[in-house]
């Protein structure tokens, strides 16, 4: 296993469990389960114990590892500067070892099987991947400037499909030249990679790269921060080097061109930073720049924002595997409560995974009618001059 040399170097000081301002627990798995074993330090020591044959890879051991959402809070906060960058890589390597031994929780096994068989974690037919675009007047990619890459959630989840259409409409409104690959696209593989299935990730990525290269794709605008991360940071090592943008970056650069309605009632908005845009790629400004440009919006930051943001709990494949569960201390339910505490009426998101997780949490917390989860492009589109 890679990165074993750092496992014993964790002191378990616990900075990794907290955000930078210490206001509450910020490791999603630890906050949900509260046993020290679920903390990053606990996982480090358990991995070491397993490799030293002091522990069996039991079902609980597997769940402890796969409850990690790969949110990177531990990397951000770890006090040990010489090992911190490897923490998440070590957890992913540990998951990879379990995958190699076939010792993973059944939902993880099923998710990986669906990815392998169908090219998406939903187990839906590939030809359905472009269903979201049927009424969206979106062109197939030929020689446009950008390839629009909606990713799995944007293509298959009903809420994700709404977001894909909304973002596509906004990009069109901004005059962005883009097209889609439709059912020739497969999963970006980010979640397979985060679940330790590096070989499956490679296969998925290579299929996408082959399609991209055949069509001479140069620039990609990703809907999902997860896809953005894989395309930007992982694909180059496999021969797929492109200019990759998250859609908020494109919108932020052009938001001044939009004709916005100044006469709408004021709304209070808070913004949830997605982990794969924030801590994984240090992009905190784009979505905020878009929101700041909208008339009538009052921004309220949560206590845990930007590099301190609490993960929604959907990363590391958890949207599909639900290893974290939906208990009262689940990160998504904590997060919407924190958003409500700011006095915001709208919880703005820029990730379809976060949108799905947080909307479910609003329902679980019986907060419907008190706070609404909206994706950035939806908020922008509603404030256009000619919005019906």
């Amino acid at each position, binding site marked *: 296993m890679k990165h074993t040399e750092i496992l*014993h*170097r*964790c*002191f*378990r*000081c*616990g*900075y990794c*469990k*907290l955000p930078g*301002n*210490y*206001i*509450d627990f910020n490791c999603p798995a630890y906050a949900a*389960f*509260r*046993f*020290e*074993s679920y903390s990053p330090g*606990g996982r480090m*020591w*358990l991995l070491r*114990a397993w490799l030293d044959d*002091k*522990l*069996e890879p*039991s079902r*609980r*051991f597997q769940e*402890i590892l796969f409850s990690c959402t790969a949110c990177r809070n531990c990397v951000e906060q770890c*006090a*040990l*500067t*010489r*090992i911190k960058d490897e923490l998440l890589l070590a957890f992913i390597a540990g998951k990879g070892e379990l995958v190699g031994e076939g010792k993973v929780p059944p939902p993880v096994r099923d998710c990986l099987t669906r990815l392998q068989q169908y090219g998406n974690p939903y187990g839906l037919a590939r030809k359905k991947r472009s269903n979201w675009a049927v009424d969206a007047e979106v062109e197939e990619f030929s020689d446009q400037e950008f390839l629009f890459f909606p990713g799995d959630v944007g293509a298959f989840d009903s809420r994700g499909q709404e977001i894909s259409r909304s973002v596509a409409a906004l990009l069109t409104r901004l005059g962005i030249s883009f097209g889609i690959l439709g059912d020739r696209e497969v999963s970006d593989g980010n979640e397979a990679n985060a679940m330790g299935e590096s070989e499956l990730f490679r296969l998925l990525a290579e299929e996408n790269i082959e399609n991209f290269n055949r069509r001479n794709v140069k620039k990609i605008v990703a809907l999902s921060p997860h896809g953005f991360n894989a395309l930007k940071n992982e694909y180059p090592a496999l021969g797929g080097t492109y200019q990759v943008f998250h859609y908020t970056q494109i919108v932020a650069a052009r938001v001044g061109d939009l004709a916005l309605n100044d006469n709408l009632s004021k709304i209070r908005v808070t913004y949830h930073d997605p982990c794969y845009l924030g801590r994984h790629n240090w992009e905190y400004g784009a979505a905020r720049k878009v929101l700041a440009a909208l008339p009538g919006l009052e921004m309220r930051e949560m*206590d845990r924002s930007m590099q301190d943001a609490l993960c929604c709990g959907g990363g590391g494949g958890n949207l599909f595997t639900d290893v974290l569960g939906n*208990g009262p201390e689940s990160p998504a339910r904590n997060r919407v409560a924190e958003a409500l505490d700011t006095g915001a009426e709208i919880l703005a998101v820029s990730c379809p995974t976060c949108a799905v997780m947080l909307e479910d949490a609003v329902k679980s917390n019986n907060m419907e009618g008190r706070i609404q989860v909206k994706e950035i492009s939806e908020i922008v589109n509603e404030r256009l001059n000619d919005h019906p």
Partner: protein
Amino acid sequence: MDNIYEVLSEIVGPEFVSDSPEEKYIYSMDPGTMPACEPDIVVMPGSTEEVQKIVQTANAHRVPVVPMGAGLVLSGLTRALKGGIVLDMKRMNRILEINKLSRYALVEAGTSQGMLQAHLKKHFPDLKHSAPDAPPAATVAGNVCIHGSGHMSHAGGFHSDMLNGLEVVLPTGEVVRIGSCATSAYWFARAPLPDLSGLFLGWAGTTGVITKLAIKLYPNYPYNDVGVFVCEDASIVPDILYQITGTQVAEDVTTWMTPKPDWAAGFMHCNVNYGAKTKQELIWKRNLIRSAVESYIDDKTGGFLPLPSMMKQRFLEVPARQLSLFADVRKGGGFEYVGAIMPVEIFPEAYDLGLDIADKLAVSYSMGCRIIGVNHSMMFFYAYAFNRADPADIARAQGALEETNKRVLDMGGVPWKAEAPAQQEIIRKMDPNTFDMMHRVRSILDPNGIMNPGNWEDN
């Protein structure tokens, strides 16, 4: 134990009880050098009522109970030496009251230092508590229980001195309140009632489970500074500390001695942290502190270090994140220290002792002290780094700690938050009548001997 597991599941909910090998492994040790001792069950209560029911169950079945905060004591005090139940208190982390005008905070026992610090910063920015140099995940209660110290200890003494009141579940299951809260809705002081708090402070969880506590808060000033006085002669340090603390304008006075980086080797560094409401007041305090040691500056036996702003920021950071880096000195994730409570006058001997042991046992060291009160005592620490993956290196650090404990006792100091073996050394030195009284008190409170057994026992 199967039956107890079921009962505990009913009390706290099955998701907060575990007898899985993973939890038994993780809770069997802390980051220090003490060997692993597995609990049978780990349970996480969410309320005083749940703690009460757990303790009643344990008492009825004569099962050991080991209360635990963040488990960061480093000396293994939260290991289940005789098996039983580890009570992880961190679900009980509500901040119940901040009384601004009487400057106290009432918190549940699992509240972390960091959480209280963040809460005050957000809601009461002109108040702060005395945070220790432990990581922010450490609990307020845990640090009070072990007579910890922190960034207001020059002004306010040990953290146990800053305690206003306690709620405790006794080993037999009764809930008691100690301090003004026993007779009043306010948690403002331990006086004037008979002070029973000593029954639960320094006992390593052997007399009951603290569920709530109130601690004193202090002014949080907008202007803060630190001066570092440096000298080469350990024999003059007690007087330097006497002079500086005599001004009574500092909040925290600490010393540090380390062989790395090279520029620090061989020098005694005395950090003086102070704060003020205005810039003028800060300058006035700086001048007062400087004038207290002017004679040493004039005869060139010492002086204040010019501090680059990055270093100053690091010295002003609370808690000091940098301290955790010591665990990686040997690329091994381990350090432990003897923190010995001593009179300030034996600083020179304490320093020589640290050098001697580090040299003899070839261990990495870092030494220093924190002044408690107005030079009333000091917590002198000897920290030793070790490589967790190397049993020989762990043994070497254990040896250093053991020898340090013995020699500290010989010098007239008392090891702080002593490991079980160090407790034995203390007991050997202790007035037998005192230890007999401890034993009798404990027998009354805990007739079945369920609370953290193996600690403070005569072997």
